[in-house]
């Protein structure tokens, strides 16, 4: 049973992980993907569907955890489109 609060908490956790990507392209992709996926299923009401999506979200969180850790092992040059004083890390 995934409540709306749990879903919102998952959304926040996913976004927080996505911010941890050092590479601009990975980071922006992850943010956009999380954002769009949640928006797409915003009006969902079937409990079963919500649960299955929630569980796949949990799996994605574990995947993001691994991928951001790997991303942080490498250094990436900042792109010109990135503001230098960005405080998300």
């Amino acid at each position, binding site marked *: 049973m995934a409540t*709306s*609060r749990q879903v*919102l*908490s998952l*959304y*926040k956790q996913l*976004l*927080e992980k996505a911010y941890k990507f050092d590479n601009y392209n990975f980071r922006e992709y992850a943010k956009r993907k999380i*954002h769009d996926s*949640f*928006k797409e299923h*915003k009006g969902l009401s079937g409990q079963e569907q919500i649960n299955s999506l929630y569980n796949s979200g949990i799996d994605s969180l574990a995947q993001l955890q691994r991928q951001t850790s790997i991303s942080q092992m490498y250094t990436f040059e900042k792109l010109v489109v990135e503001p230098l004083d960005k*405080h*998300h890390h």
Partner: protein
Amino acid sequence: MFRTSLLRNLRAPLISSSVTRKPLVQNVVALSQPLFVRNYSGFPPLTRELAKERILELLEGYDKVDASKEITEESSYVQDLGLDSLDVVEVVMELEHEFNIQIPDNEADSLKTVGQTIDYVLSQEDSV
């Protein structure tokens, strides 16, 4: 940063003072004089006006906020600014970054208006 400059200042005379020990002593005295103190952390304290200004700026920069409406302290995120619960989570995350604080989920739930948010930020001792 202060520590490294301090160490450097202490170290420099040591190298040159192999002949005479006097410069080292002089330098230590110089360090203790108020002339040497620099206030690196001299930013203004977080007042209510300052917090309000920063929060409003943050909200105005957020593209999903209805730009035609003026944001006041009474503005509710969901009713007045046209945000949904997912957007509110994003606003809370931006606030966390802006003021360098952690907002737990149950407390984030209770933040419904801009005014409540300002009060919450000010009530956190480690807000900057």
